[in-house]
């Protein structure tokens, strides 16, 4: 099935590498995981991870109709081929089925860290994956097809060799794309990132077709009437390896329930499987054509998108505020003058060094990697099972803190040295002069950069989808995966992002203006006396108190 996104393996490799130091061997890994799994065995639950956004295998819906199963920690339901299959397995195991909605890249680490018991998500048992996790026998066998324009030149093709001279593409990092070279004389186009892009290219005539799998093909032709899926009879289609087209259940190595699961799968015949897939294709969320596209998406998923928006705003706001406080603290510490005492100087040097390490590590690694290492790593190494949103808040805060530290530090450095001198000449301690004089100026000068950081946070929370935080982008991915209206869904999502970021830049610009105070030059307590007092000031320099009386009298008048 999908081998997309080298990301998954990269992220996985990185934290395995890191935790290899803490935990010498995989044996420790599995024992830690097995322990958490054992705990859950007591609960008699079977926790299954899936994206719930890859129809017809799995999708999210808002009601429990058609035998959908509630998603853990959410008011939504999951359904699809995978969900129905999971129900059969859970029944055979005598356990209660729990669906854990997990991002595609997060599935293997969630399994190895014991956050889920199985992956039933349309996943193929590739050799690379087999190194990390174990697989049951196949529960669905897929087939490659080509999606073309219904009224196009290739609409009546019956063999892959009919596509000689056709411009074909497929998804990046998939075996679909590798398979194209089996066609002689084909014009292989650069691989594309997702199906939305391929469908749009196909409809616009940039390509003549794309290689896909049958369930996706059926969905494509159902969703867009101008597209047609072409299936091939045996011997006329692509040659594929079972590693690619087989779909199996991912389980932890040494899972004692493997035999029971295989037995349960054996009871479902090929015919029943095809029937179930047809059922899933038919029941998957559809778009009715009476309303416009926006209403369609909004009516069905508006709530989901709004919740995602709320979470994105909350995480980025919290992260920016806490990150700002962290940055403030670090900025102050790192600009503290060296004390005279040798011991204190040593301590300050050490703290300074540690903070520099923190800043360099956080700035030097992508937040998506930090999120994966922190969330899955903690679970894998120490069995700490953290709430996803809490993990997200911590990650964004610490990430922002590292950047804010440098922002505040440069803000402090940019304050004129005369301000420091004047404050210390009044007898202020370092802390006092920082609080009363330097930091207000440093922060004021940093506001444009802080605004920037806030805006970056709003957008960058999207990487938290790697730990399945249901923020705006994650929700968008889900909606797009279900409606197959990638362009339209992401258009809505991008407008929401734009509204958020634009509002924030406006609000902070207003704060900036407020801090600067009025720009006019009515600097006197009573502007109407400006002229008179100015004169008297000039004339009565030797008796300066005079003009004050003047003002007072004027005010009494």
């Amino acid at each position, binding site marked *: 099935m999908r081998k997309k996104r080298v990301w998954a393996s990269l992220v996985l490799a990185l934290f395995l590498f890191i935790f290899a130091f803490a935990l010498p061997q995989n044996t420790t890994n599995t024992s830690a995981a097995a322990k958490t799994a054992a705990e859950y065995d007591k609960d008699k639950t079977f926790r299954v991870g899936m994206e719930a956004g890859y129809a017809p295998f799995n999708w999210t819906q808002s009601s429990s109709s058609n035998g959908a199963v509630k998603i853990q920690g959410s008011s939504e339901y999951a359904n699809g081929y995978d969900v129905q299959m999971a129900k059969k397995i859970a029944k055979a195991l005598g356990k209660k089925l729990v669906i854990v909605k997990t991002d595609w890249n997060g599935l293997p680490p969630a399994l190895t860290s014991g956050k889920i018991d199985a992956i039933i998500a349309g996943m193929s048992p590739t050799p690379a994956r087999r190194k990390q996790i174990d697989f049951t026998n196949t529960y669905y066998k897929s087939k490659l097809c080509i999606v073309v324009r219904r009224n196009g030149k290739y609409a009546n093709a019956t063999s892959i060799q009919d596509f000689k001279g056709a411009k074909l593409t497929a998804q990046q990092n998939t075996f679909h794309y590798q398979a194209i070279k089996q066609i002689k004389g084909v014009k292989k186009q650069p691989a594309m990132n997702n199906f939305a892009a391929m469908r749009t290219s196909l409809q616009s005539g940039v390509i003549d077709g794309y290689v896909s799998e049958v369930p996706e093909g059926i969905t494509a032709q159902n969703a867009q009437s101008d597209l047609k899926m072409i299936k091939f009879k045996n011997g006329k289609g692509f040659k594929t390896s079972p590693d690619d087209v087989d779909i199996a259940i991912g389980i932890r190595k040494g899972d004692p329930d493997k035999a029971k699961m295989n037995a349960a799968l054996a009871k479902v015949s090929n015919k029943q499987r095809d029937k179930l897939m047809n059922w899933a294709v038919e029941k998957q969320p559809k778009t009715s054509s009476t309303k416009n596209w926006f209403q369609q998406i909004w009516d069905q998923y508006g709530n989901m998108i709004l919740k995602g928006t709320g979470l994105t705003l909350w995480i980025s706001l919290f992260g920016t505020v806490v990150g700002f406080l962290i940055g403030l603290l670090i900025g102050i510490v790192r600009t503290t003058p060296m004390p005279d005492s040798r011991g204190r100087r040593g301590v300050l040097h050490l703290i300074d060094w540690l903070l520099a390490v923190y800043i360099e590590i956080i700035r030097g690694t992508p937040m998506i990697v930090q999120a994966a290492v922190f969330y899955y790593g903690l679970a894998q190494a120490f069995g700490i099972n953290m709430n996803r949103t809490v993990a997200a808040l911590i990650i964004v805060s610490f990430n922002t803190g590292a950047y804010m530290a440098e922002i505040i530090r440069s803000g402090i450095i940019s304050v004129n040295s005369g*301000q420091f001198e004047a404050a210390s000449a009044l*007898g202020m301690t370092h802390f006092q002069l920082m609080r009363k004089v330097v930091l207000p100026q440093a922060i004021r000068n940093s506001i444009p950069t802080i605004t920037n950081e806030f805006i970056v946070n709003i957008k960058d929370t999207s990487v938290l989808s790697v730990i399945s935080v249901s923020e705006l982008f994650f929700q968008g991915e889900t909606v797009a995966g279900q409606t197959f209206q990638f362009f339209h869904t992401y258009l809505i999502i991008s407008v929401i992002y734009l509204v958020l970021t634009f509002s924030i830049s406006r609000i902070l610009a207003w704060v900036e203006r407020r801090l600067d105070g009025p720009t006019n030059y009515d600097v*006197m307590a009573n502007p109407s006396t400006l002229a008179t007092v100015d004169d008297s000031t000039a004339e009565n320099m030797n008796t300066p108190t005079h003009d004050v009386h003047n003002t007072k009298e004027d005010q009494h008048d």
Partner: protein
Amino acid sequence: MTEQLIEVAHLKKNFGKHEVLKDINLTVDKGEVLTIIGASGSGKSTLLRNINLLERPTSGDIRFHGKSILQPHFDIPKYRAEVGMVFQQFNLFSNLNVLDNCVVGQTTVLKRDKAEAEEIAKKQLAKVGMGPYIQAKPAQLSGGQQQRVAIARAVCMDPEALLFDEPTSALDPEMVDEVLDTMKQLAKTGLTMIVVTHEMAFAHDVSDQVVFMKDGVLAEKGTPDQIFNHPQEAATQHFLKRYTQR
């Protein structure tokens, strides 16, 4: 009954290998106005900054009320509150308005309550003719106005001595007088003042003692009459000639 307030003994200050101050000896009595004159780069400002400990002396001693301010556990913030400083570039706190510039030191360092501090600040600002401007931000004021606020800010701390580091050098000529007048008023109150300046008329009229610095040493010291009317050293004569001929 003169009492020695500030005493500088064998003070040396190096910046790297460069010797800026070489064996400076100086005493300032309570209530006295001492003026330091000399060419740019002669070490006048460095001397003043050492007295306030904005620079750390390389060797020698500075005593305040007979006690060394260089001893290990000396309370520097308290000392600085007692010996105020007025800078060439005014250095008003640009985030605070005129009133708060004069209040912030009193409330944070002297722990006065806000109402009392504001009252004192208003009184001192009125004395320097800045009473009507208490709501203004420093950037809205002229240089002369800023410097008068800076003087009021220093006076609000009830210092025993005030150090002036070329307070009129950054001002346009027409604003110099308003600042010098303010300083004359202060001198009359009996405040101890050490003034680094190029304003020879002021030095002549207001000082009790004038010192002429050249290349990091005190080349000559004496009363204004001695220094300005009967300078003994050739260097002093040469320096003063350039000023009086202008």
